[in-house]
């Protein structure tokens, strides 16, 4: 079995699993005042400190959520509402068109239901937003921009976006920027303080932690309107009883992701390069998606377009040989749609259906790459014969 879909989810690190199971047997609501509560709170706060250190943030800036999707929704909707509350003129949302659906659908919802004017920033053929494009969009009317949301690295094609430069532009106009760093964390340096971001999304299960836990790293001066109202946990921004075992496990995974990042990126980058070379050797007309330069893309991501193929056909053929990868982003009912990311980069809609994303991770081996090298040529040949329906 060659598991090459780590961007969807990556196996839990043994250390994180151990932290999770150890905490499952311990009683205590972190909001309670008695000894059990204090013990739980200590675990949560130590985890918060660990995670803050791993992300270059202050502990108070870590707001735990149920995952990346919730953190994205909280940032995008919450900041939109609070910025608009402060000045009703602020109804423009500037977003990259290559965002994950957790951001894309949230801003779309703001447009449909909250009177927002959503503007998608132009991207180059690698899916990158240029600072000049952001400046142009803001300068058309700096006063009506509620927020900017631009992901740190793209989940499908792996392109890294110039977050710091984009923040610098927005900062000139005092506009907060949110970034979805779910894919970036653990692969490239992610330092919240140095980024200048107002808010940043991270998720545990993409870095070897458990499902169902993530965080919005939220600058202290920002107070988004909550999406969830209740007991007032997490700076009154995100109510709900803290999942202590998940938080403890997330912190372990986060610490290890930061500690191991440099070695991991070097090793996995080399393996990824081998995979890219192998695919290109087997299928010379395969097109690498995203920025081809090593510094411009995630080290664990390899994305290809195979002209004349249906991505679904390739998936089926590789799956039958024990190679697990993805066409890009999953859809609930499983119907193949041309990727919105590729369409945004100007790809031909027919070509955009013939994509595969291989994403490597901490369990990836040379054998995985060899399995792909062996299988991809015949699979592409078959899928081409089956054509596009």
């Amino acid at each position, binding site marked *: 079995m060659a598991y090459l879909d780590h961007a969807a989810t990556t196996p839990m690190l043994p250390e994180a699993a151990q932290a999770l199971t150890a905490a499952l047997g311990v009683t205590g609501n972190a909001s309670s005042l008695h000894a059990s509560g204090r013990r739980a709170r200590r675990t949560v706060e130590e985890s918060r400190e660990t995670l803050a250190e791993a992300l270059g943030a202050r502990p108070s800036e870590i707001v735990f959520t149920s995952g990346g999707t919730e953190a994205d929704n909280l940032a995008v909707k919450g900041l939109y509402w609070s910025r608009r509350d402060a000045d009703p003129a602020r109804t423009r949302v500037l977003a990259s068109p290559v965002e994950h659906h957790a951001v894309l659908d949230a801003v779309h919802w703001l447009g449909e239901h909250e009177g927002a004017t959503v503007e998608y920033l132009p991207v180059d053929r690698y899916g990158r937003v240029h600072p000049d494009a952001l400046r142009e969009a803001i300068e058309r009317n700096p006063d009506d921009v509620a927020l900017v949301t631009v992901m740190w690295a793209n989940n499908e094609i792996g392109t890294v976006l110039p977050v710091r430069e984009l923040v610098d532009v927005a900062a000139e106009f005092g506009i907060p920027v949110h970034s979805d760093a779910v894919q970036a964390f653990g692969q490239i340096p992610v330092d919240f303080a140095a980024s200048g971001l107002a808010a940043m999304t991270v998720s545990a299960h993409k870095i070897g932690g458990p499902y169902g836990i993530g965080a919005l790293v939220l600058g202290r001066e920002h107070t988004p309107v909550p999406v969830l109202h209740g007991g007032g946990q997490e700076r009154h921004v995100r109510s709900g009883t803290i999942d202590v075992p998940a938080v403890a496990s997330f912190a372990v995974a986060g610490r290890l992701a930061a500690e191991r990042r440099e070695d991991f990126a070097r090793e996995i980058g080399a393996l990824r390069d081998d995979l890219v070379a192998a695919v290109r050797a087997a299928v010379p007309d395969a097109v690498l998606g995203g920025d081809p330069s090593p510094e411009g893309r995630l080290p664990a991501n390899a994305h290809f377009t195979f002209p004349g193929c249906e991505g*679904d*056909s390739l*998936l*089926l*053929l590789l*799956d*039958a040989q024990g190679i697990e990868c993805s066409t890009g982003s999953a*859809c*609930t*009912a*499983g*119907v*193949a*749609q041309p990727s919105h990311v590729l369409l945004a980069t100007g790809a031909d809609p027919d070509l955009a259906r013939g994509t595969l994303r291989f994403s490597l991770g901490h369990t990836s081996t040379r054998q995985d790459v060899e399995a792909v090298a062996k299988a991809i040529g015949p699979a592409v040949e*078959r*899928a081409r*014969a*089956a*054509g596009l*329906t």
Partner: protein
Amino acid sequence: MTDTPQRTRPLRVLAAMSGGVDSAVAAARAVDAGHDVTGVHLALSANPQSFRTGARGCCTIEDSRDARRAADVIGIPFYVWDLAERFREDVVENFVAEYEAGRTPNPCLRCNEKIKFAALLDKALALGFDAVCTGHYAKIVTRPDGTRELHRASDLAKDQSYVLGVLDDQQLAHAMFPLGDTATTKEEIRAEAERRGLAVAKKPDSHDICFIADGDTRGFLARRLGTAEGDIVDETGNKLGTHQGAYGFTIGQRKGLRIGTPAPDGKPRYVLDISPVTNTVTVGPASALDVEALTAIRPRWCGTAPAGPGTYTAQLRAHGGETEVTAELVDGELRVTFTEPVRGVAPGQAIVLYDGTRVVGSATIATTRRVAAASV
């Protein structure tokens, strides 16, 4: 006759899973028979966008979930293939055009011919599969010379060979119908699904045309073709009433005519003829519906075409009875004479010829000759 090869050597099988109980049990039986099975659900909705937004009242997202659940329980890979564009072109548009021309099409037959055992089968074969498996109730029997025969299912009440009558030998060579082989009733299939832990065991049967979710064919056609008031006349041309579009009628139809004045003899009146050009619907007594002969076009044969005239039993509509005919192929057109007159034969429907339980072939009814009148 020998057993089908499908049951003697393991094949790579693509199981078309609609989300219903029959196709789920069929896929499970294919696995039991030792085949390497992959499930696929066909997304046929005209608007694939509804999968994301859920905005449309389309049942497909529910069906696709049911199919996926069944595949997970059976333990086979599962995919959804978007064949909406092909389905729209080959089935839905054809359905509308046929009604517009005053005929009565059978979209299920068309779907088997153009989608399940053409578009889907072609893609499956290209991807390295050997066969497409469905939950149809019909039997494939392999002759000693390796060619195949299609037979009625053991359970005649569930038999679906009529809607498969359009398949030729090559299509049958790559088809697998695990439900037709054994004398199982629908109740037994449900019990088997229950035993296998398939949640679709209790799911109601689908009866209607899948792309007309509310079952209102006339409303669907009115939305597509618009309404146009026309006359309802008797056999001598006397106007009896009006209608909102000739396409909304089927030959032999009795209900829904809304004629105020009763017939002089007090007997019910039926649709005898539909004329799209003049937008006229002709009605008359049941006796005027009796047909003694017909011609049918686009003949398809399970195996080789019969050399000369032959005597067969014929089925003229889904769930219809059998009737004895002589049939002959003349200049590529099937000429059929009924031993006893039959009533209510609608152009556009398929005639399927049988020799005992064996499907000989099928063709699309083009014209009929009434006992009492000239050809219409």
